[in-house]
């Protein structure tokens, strides 16, 4: 850096540049918040007008003529089933991975597995869809299980990461106290260390569910060729909310757009509440653990 220019004209110019840059930074933040406001507002405004209970209770009517009461009940049920199974797969494995990396693994192993988790997190969702298509769908056909497996792959690194982040915050003294009392390592890990991190695990689970509930790409190849009936059976392909919105948005019929807006509003509200809730939980559990240190 060159020596600052302290002559009065130089000082005035430098102050002006500084002022300009500060204004630009304020403008950047305002733009980002503005974009969020515009997107959420324009979805909610169109969705709120279109929303009624039929959306959640009625099924779609293909080739409907005239005003037929129809909804997306099959998609909401399908999303619940698929996301539920995805969480059942990703949560236990993600927590175990985090336990292994923080409690047992040597640093070299930890580096390799952490890198693998980061790479997994960076693989595009559509590629995960193709992968599960090749793994389960070819020869066997689409199913809710295949969709849930694809979403589970996306959830796994999120759950593992957020569990790791709280595990490292658990004070070593707590582990040492437990081991010092003669408690075996596995019981120390499962009944002393793990319960301390429950806040972080719930956060990770909520963030994971919020992220995958809105995913479309992995489901296109694994669970998208569906009927219009409500089904809780994941061995068949199930309709989901994101895939339904995707299909309706490509339709030329304005009535379909209306339903897409309504479904998008429900999905968006769920996801925003879940991720803000997760944020709140994360701050709370971190503060608690840091206070205990």
């Amino acid at each position, binding site marked *: 850096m060159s020596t600052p220019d302290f002559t009065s004209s130089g000082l005035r110019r430098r102050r002006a540049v500084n002022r300009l840059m500060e204004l630009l930074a304020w403008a*950047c933040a305002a733009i980002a918040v503005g974009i969020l406001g515009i997107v959420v507002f*324009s979805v909610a405004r169109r969705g709120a007008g279109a929303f009624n209970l039929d959306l959640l209770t009625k099924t779609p009517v293909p080739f409907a003529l005239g005003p037929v009461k129809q909804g997306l009940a099959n998609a909401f049920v399908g999303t619940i089933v698929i996301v539920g199974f995805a969480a059942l797969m990703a949560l236990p494995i993600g927590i175990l991975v985090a336990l*292994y990396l923080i409690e047992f693994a040597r640093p070299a192993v930890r580096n390799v597995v952490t890198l693998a988790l980061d790479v997994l997190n*960076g*693989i595009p969702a559509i590629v995960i869809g193709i992968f599960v298509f*090749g793994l389960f769908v070819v020869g066997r056909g689409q199913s809710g299980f295949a969709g849930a497996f694809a979403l589970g792959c996306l959830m796994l690194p999120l759950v593992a990461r957020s569990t790791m982040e709280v595990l490292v915050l658990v004070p070593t003294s707590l582990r040492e106290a437990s081991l010092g009392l003669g408690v075996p390592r*596995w019981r120390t890990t499962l009944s002393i260390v793990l319960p301390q991190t429950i806040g972080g695990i719930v956060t990770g689970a909520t963030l994971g569910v919020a992220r995958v509930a809105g995913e479309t790409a992995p489901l296109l190849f694994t669970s998208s060729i569906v009927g219009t009936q409500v089904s809780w059976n994941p061995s068949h392909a199930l309709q989901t909310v994101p895939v339904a919105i*995707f299909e309706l948005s*490509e339709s030329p019929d304005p009535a379909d757009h209306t339903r897409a807006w309504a479904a998008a509003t429900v999905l968006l509200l769920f*996801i925003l509440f879940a991720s803000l809730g997760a944020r709140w939980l994360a701050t709370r559990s971190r503060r608690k653990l840091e206070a205990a240190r």
Partner: protein
Amino acid sequence: MSSAELTDAPRRSFTGRRVRLGDFLLQVVAGAAALAATALVLLITYKVVEGAQLSLGTYGLGFVTRVAWNPVAGHELYGAASFLFGTAITSLLALALAGPLAIGIALFLTELAPRTLRAPVTALVETLAAIPSVVIGLWGILVLGPQLRLHIEPWLHSGLGFIPLFGTPSAAGASIFTAVIVLAIMILPIVSSITRELFLGVPRDLKEGALALGTTRWEMVRGVVFPYARGGIAAALILGLGRAIGEAIAVTQVIGGGVFIHWSLFSGGDTLASKIAAQYQGATSNLQESSLIYLGLILLVFSLVTNLTAQWIVRRVARRQGVGIARA
């Protein structure tokens, strides 16, 4: 309590010869989970290569440079060049828009924002990342696209039409330009939250030292914050680029489609990811299906390259500065 019990307990835990069954089981089960997570990355790569085998064998590397997508039986010919071009132009322009904006936001949040604004604005920017791509795409195709076509595109065309990027707006409404804006919105929160954490890691004494020498706040940022965070900013931009390259749904919804290379932002096109998503209702032949998976293989290679490069930079910077920085 007898003395035998007292001497018994330590012998079991301190000799280290007899490993407890519980310890062994937990370590094996947790280790197996970690191994499975690592193996998953390899399995994904293997399965995608396997799916692309037919197309790889038929076209080899020529696939990458050919502009073609003809599924008509008897005249089948596939190539990735136009999609590669579409991916490059959309993701690079999106990064050019979102990158500076994200750095501005990070500066605002770390250096300028009043204490009361800091947490809420951080939360709001990160909330932007939570909006599902299909919802952004819905908004992009029904609200943003028509607005751009009616107002922004004609205005840019009349003023800057001599630059080939700003060609005649298409009547269809879908355009590469809309895709660029949508992608920029989607990668903005990722880049800004990583950059923010980097800026938070800049040592306070360096910043205060610069200010004490009489620099303005901007000069301090340029002279201390940027050089200190340079490597990390590069990693954040690369991760943002990776995200933009891999986004399929929102782009498919707004970009319109088409197999050609042209410079006009205001006409349709396709990216690798959007082409795959657009064809989800089933390929008509094995070769077409395999060629779609070939497109996915190219995407996978891109994502591995961007992620590993970014991680490599992050680890190098972290080792040098002894600070951990967060990932996307």
